[in-house]
């Protein structure tokens, strides 16, 4: 032993199982996982490749899959512990960490250079204007903005917003971008519920309120006045159990006892023949939207059918705004493009924003 290492330690009988325990736990988990797992593809021989492989091994660990739900339930239920993707509020309310980070985070960047939201809105507006198509931007406020009480335990008088967002919409208006921010509307209606308790997304009521607000705005603007009409009807309501995406993000299984199970009442949309709503082939309204636009779509009760119902026009959904100008026929028949974004996108990842150069 070296000269500086004058460490002494004593052990008492009855302590010699610690090393065995450590070895046994590590070896048993390792062996069980090796025997039961499906192995991910071999990694690239780079630091990032190896780290990705390590993460895949960890996520795919059979022992982890078995242990994670009960441990996470215990921690979340008793101590309100979330994980990197999920923040746990009171009463089993779950929140998407990225959304909360947007609400409390640094101000939204307010410059108009390509790569940011303002340039994306303005450039898409200009590119669509060349094709005689109007653009309406719709931002959906985060759950933490509209339902903050379970997070703080205190009543809130006003929506909890990133303070730069209203300024950003004001700048967008100066650039000629028509935008709809339904925060105040949804805040006023929140007593009846506008968000799902265990999901990142709005509930059918919040979605329908927003669809009505968009329809009102488009009717006011008159952009679809000359569009061919199609009649749609609201079908009888159906009640379905709902397994929120945040439950899975928290590492729990669908149908877990905690958080309490949730269900939603959906209003499917039908055409005048009583057939389930279907996207139009060359519709006057194209919605470029994210998962908010896709919620309840499987039951034909999502945002796009409800817009079609309220406006009496055909509509279709594309998942990314970039596809509007690159996919053949994406804008065939279109008179209005509604670009729906989750407000958190404004700060989430600046590289996410596309730019649409003129004269493409």
């Amino acid at each position, binding site marked *: 032993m070296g*000269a500086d290492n004058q460490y002494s330690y004593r*052990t008492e009988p009855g*302590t*010699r199982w610690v090393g065995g325990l450590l070895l046994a736990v*590590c070896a048993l988990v390792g062996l069980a996982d090796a025997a039961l797992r499906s192995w991910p593809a071999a990694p690239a021989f780079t630091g990032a490749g190896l780290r990705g492989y390590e993460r895949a091994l960890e996520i795919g*660990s059979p*022992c982890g899959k078995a242990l994670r739900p009960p441990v996470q339930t215990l*921690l979340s239920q008793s101590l309100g512990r979330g994980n990197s993707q999920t923040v746990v509020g009171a009463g089993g309310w779950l929140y998407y960490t990225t959304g909360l980070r947007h609400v409390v*985070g640094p101000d939204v960047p307010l410059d108009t250079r390509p790569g940011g939201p303002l340039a994306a809105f303005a450039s898409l507006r200009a590119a669509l204007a060349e094709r005689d198509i109007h653009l309406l931007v719709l931002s959906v406020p985060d759950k933490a903005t509209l339902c903050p009480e379970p997070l703080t335990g205190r009543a809130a008088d006003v929506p909890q917003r990133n303070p730069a967002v209203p300024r950003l919409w004001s700048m967008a208006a100066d650039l000629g971008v028509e935008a709809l921010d339904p925060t105040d509307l949804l805040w006023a209606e929140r007593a009846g519920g506008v968000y799902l308790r265990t999901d990142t997304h709005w509930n059918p009521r919040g979605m329908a309120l927003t669809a009505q607000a968009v329809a009102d705005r488009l009717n006011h603007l008159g952009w679809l006045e000359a569009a061919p009409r199609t009649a749609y009807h609201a079908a009888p309501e159906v009640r379905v159990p709902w397994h929120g995406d945040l439950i899975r993000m928290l590492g729990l299984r669908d149908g877990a006892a905690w958080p309490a199970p949730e269900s939603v009442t959906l209003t499917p949309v039908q055409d005048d023949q009583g057939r389930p709503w279907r996207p139009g082939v060359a519709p006057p309204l194209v919605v470029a939207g994210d998962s908010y636009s896709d919620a309840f779509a499987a039951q034909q009760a999502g945002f796009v059918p409800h817009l079609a119902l309220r406006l009496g026009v055909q509509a279709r959904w594309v998942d990314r705004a970039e596809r509007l100008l690159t996919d053949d026929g994406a804008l065939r028949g279109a008179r209005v493009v509604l670009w729906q974004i989750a407000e958190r996108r404004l700060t989430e990842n600046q590289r996410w924003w596309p730019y649409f150069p003129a004269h493409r």
Partner: protein
Amino acid sequence: MVFSSYLFLFGFLPPALAAYYLCPPRHRTLAMTLLSYLFYGWASPWFVLLLAGTTVFDYVAGLVVSGRFAWAAGDQQRRLGVVASVTVNLAMLGAFKYLGFAQENLNWLLDALGRPTLDVIRVALPVGISFYTFQSMSYCIDIYRRRAQPCESLADFACYVSLLPHLVAGPIVRYHQIADQLHQREYTWARFNHGAAFFAFGLAKKVLLANPMGEMADAAWAAGGLSAAQAWLGAVAYAFQIYFDFSGYSDMAVGLGRMMGFELPRNFERPYLADSITDFWRRWHISLSTWLRDYLYFPLGGNRRGALRTYANLVIVMLLGGLWHGAQWTFVAWGALHGAALIAERLMGRQPLYQRAPRWIRVSLTFLLALLAWVLFRSPTIGAAGAYLMAMAGWGQGRPLVDAVLRSPDHLLALAACLWVTWRCADTWEALAHLTPRRAWQAGLLFVAAVLVLFTQDYSPFLYFQF
């Protein structure tokens, strides 16, 4: 791969221990070296070559310094060897760690002068380079000073430089501290158990205390606005995060070393019980502070050349110590703040400014000073640190929802545990100096709890990996 990761605990550690102990004792140093290279290669595969190159270079330099090759006059050859080692190690550190920083600052100057700026070269930082270059360098310096004998075998020296437990985040081990152990180690089940208990305590510090504190600190620093209470809570959380993260890693390193027959030095001695900043530096990251003392402060003259020179030396050491942590002005400012506090205490006769106060007040004020300095350390820029300090002073605009993370029940419980462990509990070294059945149970339960909680946490590398 970090010690608290799934892959290390369940995929690497059991087979590595099995392979190590299945080797005949005379081959275990080589086995340890190979395992260490495998461990390091997982973090940064191509930088293994850099580690190997440094090792070979410093091994040869050590032989040159020791006079093994008689191709020049003795002293000249010795000096050449040590200068070459120091130059190459610092150049390597500079190229990988400080080149971009230097270019950015040069660009700032060029921009101010209205001259065209340079393209900044971005180089990936090899994990642990700050630690192993310091070790390699100190080896040659110690031989030059005749405080250590040159290593007889390249395999032994490679084991010293790459020793898995301390390779990527210390403690910084001097060659003479470990030279004998490279040839002869004692393997007993009692020692293995002791190491396992150390490892369990360290893992628990990391997983159960440091990680939740890190979540709080990250939330505070990511917020667009903070009230004074939120800012203080975030700063305290960071103070605990960095302590339990690094001391937890050091405990795991010591434990792992002991499980494999090596004794590593103590790196922390309850630093938040320090009653002055001078005392703090006797207790915080001891292997770095003693390294800087022996290889920088003393060669600069230490305190033997008058008061002014002593103060200048202190400032140089603390500034460079700050810069060692990373190429950012915030680290330099952190070092400067500590240096100023050390000078102030020396001016008062090596006593804290508040020497007449009761001990608990001295400890509290020292913690407060360290806490304010941590704000500089944690912030990405000096401006951000200033804004954070302003928020602590009550000039911030708090956002209520930050409390969703800062005041969640799990985080408040973890914070209470940190306070209790820091000021009311024995440190791992004291607690495990005598491994009683009670401590063994504590270690066992903490290990199982940490492993269970680990499955619910995402990847979170040690803070000191980035340094």
